[in-house]
């Protein structure tokens, strides 16, 4: 098992270097001089320009520059924001919990609704439940989620007035961000109504971000389940006289989950892409909105660093899913 994990990490290294090359190349592909871009609107004196060029190493050969960039990354130096002058990594770390909280809520919704729905649809194949569920899943899969979010705002915030339109919590409340998760922090703070407020802010973005993963997971679970239900070992389980529920929930589901776990892992990328749109609509102060804002502010070091950091998050989660896959699939584990 340890060797299995090690081999997965081994595969990751060249991909990481490649991702770093893409991020490195990004700022050099930009039209215009990177130093002029970074110095912003105010302009820059020729002396300062030369000084900066030496300082940032732009006068050195490209491979050396890349080496410096790479060693910088390994020491946690992802550059500094042009706008706020703060290190990119620091900004990322303050904003990431918001995105993480939103993503966790979304993937939890998606898994806990999607898997049972897919299993039920497979068991009752061809029934009205199956048809409605799969129709809904395909609709969800086809959904432009930025529009879906606006629609929910119109209905729940505008028409019903149930939920707030933006942010993570009402401005009435203020408490230290111990964990960075608003749900937990609001509980710790002990302030009356804070937790309720946090939940009501989270509901709509959570639903919006969950939509596509939910649809994908439900569809994948159904097809994996259908395949497994036709297997010989399911017949064996039934021939043992096991209750139908046990046959499905133990013998069939355990096998069907193997491809489903891979699918769930692949949703990290979908969640990150979705976060860009969801956070923009709901003014959710996470890394998705941060990236969009930085693109518009021409804060290129942030775009560069954020791109790399998000890719790293995706890669690490995929690695974790690979390892988890090894744990739930005995054929991989026992090799």
């Amino acid at each position, binding site marked *: 098992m340890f060797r299995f994990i090690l081999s997965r990490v081994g595969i990751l290294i060249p991909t990481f270097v490649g991702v770093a090359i893409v991020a490195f190349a990004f700022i050099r592909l930009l039209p215009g001089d990177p130093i002029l871009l970074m110095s912003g609107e105010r302009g820059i004196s020729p002396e300062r320009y030369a000084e900066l060029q030496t300082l940032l190493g732009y006068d050195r050969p490209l491979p050396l520059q890349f080496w410096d960039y790479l060693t910088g990354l390994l020491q946690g130096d992802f550059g500094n924001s042009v706008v706020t002058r703060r290190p990119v990594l620091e900004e990322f770390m303050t904003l990431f919990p918001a995105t993480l909280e939103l993503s966790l809520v979304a993937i939890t919704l998606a898994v806990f609704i999607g898997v049972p729905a897919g299993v039920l649809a497979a068991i009752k194949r061809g029934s009205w439940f199956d048809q409605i569920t799969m129709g809904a899943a395909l609709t969800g899969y086809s959904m432009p989620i930025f529009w879906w979010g606006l629609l929910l705002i119109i209905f729940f915030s505008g028409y019903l007035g149930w939920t707030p339109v933006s942010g993570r919590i009402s401005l009435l409340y203020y408490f230290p961000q111990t964990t960075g998760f608003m749900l937990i922090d609001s509980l710790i703070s002990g302030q009356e109504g804070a937790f309720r407020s946090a939940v009501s802010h989270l509901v709509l973005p959570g639903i919006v971000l969950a939509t596509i993963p939910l649809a994908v997971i439900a569809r994948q679970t159904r097809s994996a389940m259908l395949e497994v239900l036709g297997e010989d070992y399911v017949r064996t389980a039934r021939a043992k*006289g096991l209750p139908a529920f046990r046959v499905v929930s133990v013998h069939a589901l355990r096998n069907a989950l193997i491809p489903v776990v891979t699918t769930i892992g692949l949703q990290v990328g979908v969640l990150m892409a979705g976060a860009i749109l969801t956070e923009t609509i709901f003014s959710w102060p996470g890394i998705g909105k941060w990236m969009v804002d930085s693109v518009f502010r021409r804060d290129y070091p942030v775009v560069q660093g954020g791109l790399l950091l998000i890719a790293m998050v995706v890669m690490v989660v995929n690695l974790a899913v690979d390892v988890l896959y090894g744990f739930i699939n005995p054929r991989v584990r026992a090799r």
Partner: protein
Amino acid sequence: MSLLTIKNLSVTFQTASGPFKAVDGFNMTLQPGEILGIVGESGSGKSVAMLGLMGLLPPTATVTADEMSFEGRDMRGIGARERRRIVGAAMAMIFQEPMSSLNPCFTVGFQIKESLRIHMKLDRKARHRRAIELLEAVGLPEPERRLKAYPHQLSGGMSQRVMIAMATACRPKLLIADEPTTALDVTIQAQILDLLVDLQKDHGMAMILITHDMGVVAETAQRVIVQYAGQQVEAQGVETLFTEPHHPYTAALLSAMPERATGDRLPTIPGVVPGQGDRPNGCLFNPRCPKADALCRTVVPPRQDETLGRALCHYPLNARIGEAA
């Protein structure tokens, strides 16, 4: 009282192109401790009939019978809960593909002990003891270690031994073995067959052996049913079946046995079992029968009596003079 009685069992599948009768008028009785062989080519409905008895067919299948009783209990309108109490306990089944019949995600021990827990209500320790006992009984060395093994770590022969251990876990009265040796190497086939017969004698259980191998039948079974295209074409005691087959299909199966072949080439039966779309008129075997004439091609053959092996044929073979008339 017989252990199992089936009269006029039919199984119909709903398919995209209309209903398909996979088993048509299947009859059998089985005494406790008896071994019955059911032979026929693939597609002859021999497995489907038994799966129907076990209640393991998909919902697209409709099972009807005039009688279907096990230990005097009517198995036709039986509720799912009551059926589960019998299936896997008093009546167990093993399958053709041992490798894919074991769940790849669970250990051998888990899968054996599961039956013991559900049917025998044994406690944890007793389950473990019994599981080891069972693996020893099916001839697996190092049973302690095998209990922790996953199916993909076992060979085909070992998997089938595990399947047999699982099926016999609750000391069944009837074991249905559906082509238990077909997927195995030739050397392993004999071992598994011997094991089945030994277990059958030790436990005094009845066994239904589904196979397409006449040799297997000759070695083990006491009585034989021959199935063709969902129909029962002959039923006889094993000795007389081999000396005096009454249906041309039985005769053809016998002459296709390597042990019996006389010429340089092994005789084969030309053609294939008719499927859903290409059922002939009259006798279903007529396109492949060397003796078929106009009558066979138009009129459905009658069921002959006991002395002629209940053969489904216009012109039964080995009919003594005066009997055929």
